[in-house]
C-alpha cells in the first residue's frame, strides 16, 4: 500500500504564491485527476511533490515519512514523473532514453544488465514505442516523444506515477490507449496515479476521483459526477458549457456550444 499525502501545502516561485492550503491523498489503485484552468498550479503541484521546487509551507508525506528527509534517489525509486512536453536529448536513441528510467535503481558505477534491458523493452512494448528502439530522440514526433517519456517512467518501476498533461501531444487513439494503460496499471498493479488533465471528458471517463483547482486552491473534490458540473465549469473556467451524460456509461460529458445556429451553418 503506497500513499502520498499533502498536508496544507503552499508552493510558489520566489515571492509569488501559486498554490496554498492544498490537502490531498494519493492512494494505491486510485487514478486521481487534477483539473483546472491554465495557470492554476497543476504543474507546480507535481514539481513540489518531487522537490524540484521547495515547499513554502506545509509538508508532503511519502508513506508517512516527510519527503524532506528522503534522498532524491529514494523518491525517484517510488515516484515517477511524466512531464508535460519533456525535452529529450536528441542524440540519444529511444532505447537509451527509456533505459535511463532505470537510473534510481542502479548502484554507483553499475551498468545496465539484462534485467534492466528486459524492463525497458517491456515498458516500450506497453507504450507502443518498441519499433522506435534505435531511432534518435531528435527524429521523433511530439506524440512519440510523449509515449517514450511514459515508457521511461514505467521503466522506473514506480509505485506512484505523476503525469502532467500526458495526452497533450497525442491523437485520439493514443489518448485513449495511454489512459487505458495507466488505468490498467493502476488497478492491476496497484499503482497510485495523479494525472493533471486539460480535457474534462477524459478526466471524467478515466479518473476515480477528480480535484478541481482554482486560483491556487482546491475548489472542489469528488467523483466525476460531483466535480464536472455546468456550475463548477462556469465558476472555475468562466465557460458556458452543457453537461450531458455519456450514452454508454452515464459519466458526465462536457459539450461545447458553438455560435453557428441550430443547423450548423
Amino acid at each position, binding site marked *: 500500500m503506497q500513499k502520498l499525502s499533502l498536508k496544507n501545502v503552499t508552493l510558489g516561485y520566489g515571492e509569488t504564491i501559486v498554490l496554498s492550503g492544498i490537502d490531498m491523498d494519493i492512494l494505491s489503485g486510485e487514478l486521481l485527476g487534477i483539473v483546472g484552468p491554465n495557470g492554476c498550479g497543476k504543474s507546480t503541484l507535481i514539481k513540489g511533490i518531487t522537490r*524540484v521546487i521547495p515547499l513554502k509551507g506545509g509538508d508532503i508525506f511519502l508513506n508517512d515519512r516527510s519527503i524532506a528527509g528522503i534522498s532524491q534517489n529514494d523518491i525517484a525509486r517510488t515516484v515517477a514523473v511524466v512531464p508535460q512536453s519533456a525535452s529529450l*536529448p536528441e542524440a540519444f536513441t529511444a532505447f537509451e532514453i527509456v533505459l535511463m528510467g532505470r537510473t534510481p535503481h542502479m548502484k554507483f558505477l553499475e551498468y545496465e544488465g539484462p534485467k534492466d534491458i528486459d524492463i525497458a523493452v517491456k515498458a516500450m512494448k506497453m507504450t507502443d514505442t518498441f519499433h522506435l528502439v534505435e531511432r534518435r530522440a531528435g527524429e521523433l514526433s511530439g506524440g512519440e516523444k510523449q509515449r517514450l517519456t511514459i515508457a521511461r517512467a514505467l521503466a522506473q518501476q514506480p509505485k506512484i506515477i505523476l503525469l502532467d498533461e500526458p495526452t497533450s501531444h497525442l491523437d485520439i487513439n493514443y489518448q485513449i490507449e495511454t489512459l487505458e494503460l495507466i488505468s490498467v496499471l493502476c488497478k492491476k498493479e496497484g499503482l497510485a496515479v495523479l494525472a493533471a488533465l486539460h480535457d474534462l471528458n477524459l478526466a471524467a471517463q478515466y479518473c476515480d476521483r477528480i480535484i478541481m483547482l482554482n486560483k491556487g486552491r482546491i475548489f472542489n473534490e469528488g467523483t466525476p459526477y460531483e466535480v464536472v458540473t455546468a456550475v463548477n465549469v462556469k465558476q472555475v473556467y468562466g465557460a458556458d458549457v452543457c453537461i450531458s451524460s455519456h450514452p454508454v456509461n452515464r459519466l458526465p460529458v462536457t459539450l461545447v456550444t458553438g455560435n453557428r445556429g441550430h443547423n450548423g451553418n
Partner: protein
Amino acid sequence: MEEEKKIITLNPVKWKGRVISIACLLVCLLVFIVFAVSSGSSSIPFATTISIILSKIPFISIPETWQGTVETVILNIRMPRVILAGVTGAALAVAGATYQGLFRNPLADPYLIGVSQGAALGAVIGFLIPISSSFWSLNLVSIFAFIGGLGAVFLVYSLGKVGKSLPMTTLILAGVALGAFLSAITSYLLITSGESFRGMSSWLLGGFSSPKWIHVWITVPIITLGSLFICLYGRSLNVMQFDEEQAQQLGINVERTKRILLVVATLITAAAVSFGGIIGFVGIIIPHAVRLIWGPDFRFLLPLSILCGSIFLILADLLARTVMPPTEIPLGIVTAFFGAPFFLYLLRRKKKAVF
C-alpha cells in the same frame, strides 16, 4: 521473429566496441609518446628512446649504450614537454565535455565561464612583476595564471548564483560579462607593456616552450585525479541531458552534481592553462569528435575524450616544434589549423544529430 532478433542485437551500452576502443587508444597514446619523444631537431632512434625510458624504471637494468647528451635531450627536455602536452590535452578535452554536458550546450568549452580570461590577466600581471630571472623557474606567470583562472570562475560563480540554486544561463552570462571585463584589462596591459609584449602574446596563444619536470609534478596529479573523478559522473551527466527538472525526478541531486563538476572541471582547466597557456580548440572539438565517432554516452565520452585530447595535443605540440625549426609555432595555431579540417571531415561524414 523479427522482434526477437531486435532484442538480441539490442546492446545499448555497446560495451565491447567501446572498451576495445579505449584499450587501443591507450596503446596509441604510449606509441605516440615514444614517437614524440624521439622526434625533434635531432632525431633519436625509437629503440634508444625506449631503452632510455625503461632504464629509468626501477628494477629494470639496461646497459647504457647511448651518449649522455641524448639522455639529457630525452629525459630533461622532450619528456616533460610531451607529458605536459598530454595531460593538458586530456584536461581540456574532458573539461570541455563536462562543460558541454552541464550547460547542455554544444558551444561550451572549458573557457566558457572565465577561466581563460582570468588566467590571461593573471599571467600578464605575472610577466609585468619585475623579479629576477632566476625566480622565473618557479614560474610566477604560472602561479598567477592559476590563481587568476580560479579567481575569475569563483567570481562568476558568486555572481551567477540565485539564492541556493545555480541557473546555468545566468552563469554563462555572468561569465561572458566578467570575461569581457578582464580581457579589456589584459589588452590594456598588453599594449602598454612595451618590451615584454612578445612573451605575453605568445603565452596567450599557448605552448610548452620551456618545460620542466616541476611543471609535470604539479599538473599530473591534479589533472589525473580530477579527470578520473569526473569520469565517475558519466551516468549523472547522461541523465542531466534531459532538463534539470527531469534529472532530479530521475533521482539525480542536480545542484550538488553541478557544483562538484564545475569545481573539478575548472580546477583541471586552470592547472592546464597555467603551464600551457590558453590553447584553444581542443576543449570544444575533441569531445565533439568523440561524440561523432562513439556516440553521446558520457560514460564513454569522458574517458575517450581524455585519451583523444591527450594524443591530439601531443601530436599538435610535435608539429609546433618540428615544422619550422628553430622557430616554434604557437600551439593554438597548430590545434586549429590541423584540427579544424579533420573535424569538418567528421562532421560531413555523419549527418545525424550529434548533441
